[in-house]
């Protein structure tokens, strides 16, 4: 089969690594590949006789000189124009006696500084976007963390980190260009015969890791967008005293309001998350009258049962802690609410937060067992044991 005459390669180097790119192009020419054109990240080569060529990437000066005029002057010195890439023109010569393109570093320094012009703009832009995506995660960690872990905040975190990384890369470019320009102003020209393999390998590894991370991010985003009212609940909410409505039973007559599905009698709390195995968590809110108990007139267990299944016990603990901290059950004398206190006796659960308003009033508990979190509220004259018994009965029905 006839060997191909054209080849494309990714330009792994950063914009400020002009000398490394020059060395790489020269090495390619020695292997029989001459640069044809160069885009932002892709260089196209044409097969040729192996030759010792010198390549120079020359920053465009901010002048009235047209490209044609500049190329004519360079050609008179033995430098042939090859390609342009953003604010850079690439020249090449096969004449070892051809004078270097720049012989006066002081005159070149202000031209070279133009390399960092756009980098500053991109760095600021990326930094602003990164802050917008990351700051909401950190402002109120106790509450936001639950929303973040169970919602689409993971996407914001990932995207924020990517933009932060991009901003750092642009800033590195700016500082590198500034440092080199200062050396030029002191009379030192940049070296052209620099090794490039180390930089090439580093950039390949970093960029491939970034590409994989970006692919994972896009996949997670698609997965997140695709979730919602699916027809699958792997572990159904138990039957029994609570009427269970599954996602498959819902139709357009239900009204959505801030994550709640409302009808005339009951409300259903619906949420979905990338991090929870179930694609839809359907919990039921409702007022259930306990069996009539003559010894406790007016009492009722109000099972606002919310059940969160998480990937790991640690994440379940985070969710449970967040629920306990944001509970509005323990009313403070000077207005406001205190978090649910941790129970010293967990009654067999891994973690238990309990507010037992002994006698009348409102009770609430949040319990974690493994990767599952339960929340139960009640109004009436109930004891802790009665609350826990009701919860255990409800859990038992689900096994």
């Amino acid at each position, binding site marked *: 089969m006839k060997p191909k005459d054209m080849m494309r390669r990714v330009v792994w180097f950063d914009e400020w690594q002009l000398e490394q790119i020059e060395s790489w192009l020269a090495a390619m020419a020695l292997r029989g590949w001459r640069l044809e054109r160069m885009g932002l990240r892709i260089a196209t080569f044409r097969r040729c006789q192996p030759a010792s060529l010198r390549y120079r990437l*020359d920053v465009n*000066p901010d*002048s*009235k*000189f047209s490209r044609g*005029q*500049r190329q*004519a*002057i*360079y*050609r*008179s*010195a033995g*430098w042939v124009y090859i390609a342009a890439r953003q604010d850079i023109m690439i020249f090449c010569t096969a004449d070892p006696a051809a*004078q*270097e*393109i*720049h*012989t*006066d570093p002081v*005159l*070149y320094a202000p*031209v070279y500084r133009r390399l960092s012009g756009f980098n500053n703009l991109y760095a600021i832009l990326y930094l602003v976007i990164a802050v917008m995506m990351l700051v909401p995660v950190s402002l109120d960690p106790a509450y936001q963390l639950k929303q973040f872990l169970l919602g689409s905040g993971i996407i914001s975190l990932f995207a924020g980190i990517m933009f932060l990384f991009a901003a750092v890369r642009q800033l590195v470019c700016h500082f590198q260009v500034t440092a080199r320009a200062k050396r030029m102003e002191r009379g030192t020209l940049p070296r052209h015969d620099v090794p490039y393999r180390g930089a090439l390998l580093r950039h390949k590894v970093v960029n491939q890791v970034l590409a994989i991370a970006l692919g994972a991010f896009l996949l997670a985003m698609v997965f997140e967008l695709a979730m919602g009212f699916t027809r699958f609940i792997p572990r159904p909410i138990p039957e029994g005293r609570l009427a269970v409505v599954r996602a498959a039973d819902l139709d357009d007559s239900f009204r959505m309001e801030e994550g709640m599905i409302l009808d005339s009698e009951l409300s259903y709390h619906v949420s979905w998350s990338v991090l929870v195995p179930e694609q839809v968590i359907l919990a039921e809110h409702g007022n259930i009258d306990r069996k009539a108990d003559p010894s406790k007139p007016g009492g009722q267990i109000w099972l606002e049962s919310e059940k969160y299944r998480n990937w790991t016990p640690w994440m379940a603990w985070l969710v449970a802690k967040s629920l306990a901290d944001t509970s509005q059950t323990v009313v403070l004398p000077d207005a406001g609410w205190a978090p649910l206190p941790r129970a010293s006796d967990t009654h067999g659960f891994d973690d238990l937060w309990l507010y037992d308003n002994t006698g009348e009033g409102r009770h609430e508990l949040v319990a974690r067992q493994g990767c599952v979190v339960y929340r139960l509220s009640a109004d009436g004259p109930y004891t802790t044991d009665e609350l826990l018994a009701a919860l255990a009965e409800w859990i038992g029905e689900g096994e």
Partner: protein
Amino acid sequence: MTELMYYTLIALRTPIPGENILTELASLSHGRLRPGPGTLVALLTQLEGQKFIMLQPVADGKGWAYRITAEGLAALKREYALLQTMVRDGSEYAARWPQ
């Protein structure tokens, strides 16, 4: 005024296309001055900004040539006079310079 700037202004005393400037500089300096083309472009940009040189179309209408302006010529004459003064002042002591 740097040496390169001085010789460039002399080179542009008559209109000359850009691709011939390097050759003219080498000729004027007897091979001593060999600036890089990028350095020459940067210098021409600077001189044009100072209005010491200008671009004008060549007589046959094909292409452009650079030539010195009146301001450039005045600056060149001042520099030449300064150099002459410096040589004259230095020559008084040339014989007594330490070896």
